[in-house]
């Protein structure tokens, strides 16, 4: 359902290439993981998929169900079901978490020609999702991510994901900042959201997350390219031997 073809990306108005010919196909129902050292371009890839306009795609294509999405802005991509759980979620003081989620939910309803949800029904729906990701109801009335701890922000991303029920879920380092119990909780929630109709791309630095959300396929990304693809055993090998091992194997 998602096809990334020989993608090249640079920063708008600069001459530094960050993604240097990356290809990847994710089918419905699959969970892929991308592992790679810091600075290899993982977050850039995830933001490019979400439609961040600070990056310029110089060649290649991104297809969703066979259609190129390059011309779509972040809003249109979100509405068609692409969701990025950001590595660094933005704090938005002054905007109430629950009303923000309701706006986002209703934007999708409207896009699908459905009626806006009744506020009371939404409250109930939201409560069930809070429970799913293990967040207390206090988070409804707090400003979006504002003053949240690192772990709370990550959970809040998963909450948004659960509320919006996207088809292509990208999780950028959702595990960082979570202690082991929180990680298990989040992984549990993600596992419950995995279905035949959607797919997941887990971006992570450590293989720890993959113990709890077991991927179908693991890719290793170094310097803007995928240099190795395998099953979940690749993650374990990587964890034991480090990235140098893969790099040596390349040479």
């Amino acid at each position: 359902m998602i096809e990334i073809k020989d993608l090249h990306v640079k920063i708008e108005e600069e001459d530094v290439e960050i993604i240097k010919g990356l290809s990847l196909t994710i089918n419905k129902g699959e969970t892929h993981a991308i592992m790679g050292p810091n600075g290899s371009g993982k977050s850039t890839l995830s933001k490019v998929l979400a439609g961040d306009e600070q990056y310029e795609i110089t060649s290649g294509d991104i297809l969703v169900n066979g259609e190129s999405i390059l011309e779509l802005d972040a809003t249109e991509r979100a509405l068609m079901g692409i969701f990025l759980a950001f590595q660094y979620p933005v704090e938005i003081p002054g905007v109430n978490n629950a009303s923000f989620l309701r706006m986002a939910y209703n934007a999708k309803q409207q896009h699908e020609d459905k009626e806006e949800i009744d506020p009371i029904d939404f409250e109930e729906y939201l409560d069930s999702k809070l429970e799913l990701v293990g967040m207390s109801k206090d988070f409804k009335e707090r400003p979006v991510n504002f003053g949240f701890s690192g772990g709370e922000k990550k959970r809040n991303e998963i909450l948004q994901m659960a509320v919006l029920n996207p088809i292509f879920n990208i999780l950028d380092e959702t595990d960082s900042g979570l202690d082991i119990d929180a990680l298990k909780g989040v992984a549990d929630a993600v596992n419950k959201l995995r279905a035949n109709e959607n797919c997941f791309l887990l971006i992570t630095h450590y293989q720890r997350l993959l113990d709890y959300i077991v991927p179908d396929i693991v890719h290793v990304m170094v310097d803007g390219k995928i240099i190795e693809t395998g099953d979940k055993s690749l993650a374990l090998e990587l964890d034991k031997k480090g990235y140098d091992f893969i790099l040596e194997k390349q040479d």
Partner: protein
Amino acid sequence: MTMTETIKKDSTLIECLNYLDDSIELYKDRVSKLEKLNKPNRKQEAWKYFPLKKLNNLPKNKGKKVTTTIQTGDQLDFINGFLTQSIDIDGVEINLSDTFNNRLNVVHEENPFTSLNTLTNNETVFINVTKKVLTPLKIRFHNDETDTIYTDPKLIITCKENSSIDILVTHEGNDTDSLENSSFKFNVEENAELNYLSIKTATRSIQESIEINCAANTYVNASYIVPSTTVSRHDAEVNLNGSNSKCYLNGLGILKSEESFTFKTRVHHRVEECESYQHFKNILSGKSMAEYNGLVEVYKDAQLTDSYQLNRNLILSDTAKAFSRPQLRIFADDVKCSHGSTTGQIEESEILYLMSRGLTRTQAHAILVFGFADEVLESSKCKFAHDEVRILLKESLKSLS
């Protein structure tokens, strides 16, 4: 030579003579003081950025009392600067005095308008809060709008020991060329709590002098929200005179065309273990101007002071200007004082975040601007008024784009 001619010097606030409609004896006394009142000028730090031309043409006449009988209603009403309606709230006493100003030392060093208020005001309104009052006190200032006038309300609000109250003040009206030169003094006695919210939607210029005196163990939260204005200038002086007191000052200006909003604060930490927090924000479009000029002064004995000043300006046009000057003067050694100031546009990363949840760029921008404004309202403790104020904020923000 008449008395008027005698004192007719360019540098004085000569126009104000018309405001003095008292008996000739009082008149004489005041005129001699008026001589000392120099008009503010750009060389003075406190007036450096202020659009002085807006105050150069003062209204010719002072507002007249429209009635001599004061009604009782659900809020205090001031028309043309005079109290016309009082309230009957248990724990709130309202008194008028016409002699008070003789006892004051009139020449204010930095702001001649404060002195002018003292000179021209004939009727000071005293509000005494004697216990914990649960009903919010609402005070409204508006003018009989047939004429361009000068008004000079003066209120002295005393929160007695152990009392508490929420006060909502609104300045309303469509009276562009008029000037309201008001003076508010708050005496907050031991263990008292004051939550104060001032909303300005009037189009007349407002020059407001604020003095807040805090005794020990007090809590003050004073918020000034200006959803629309032409000229709005506020000079606040806070004296933390008793230990273990907390004072919050919040301000928000939403400005367009040539509107201006100035907030000058002087917070004096005179004793130990007090806290003061200032949070001022502006949203500027058109050729508008905002100025925050804050100073926290921590005296030698004011150990364990905790204070911050935060000024953030959101600039939506190339021609708007924001001036930000948070300052600290510290003479004690064991204190926690900080200040911060940011001026800029909405961050693209914030827009992307909201767009990636399905909101359009326009929606995202509007939400972020509203959130920027609402954060100040959230710091006010007069919760009962928040829904109504939010409507004003939304309307005002709509008119910016």
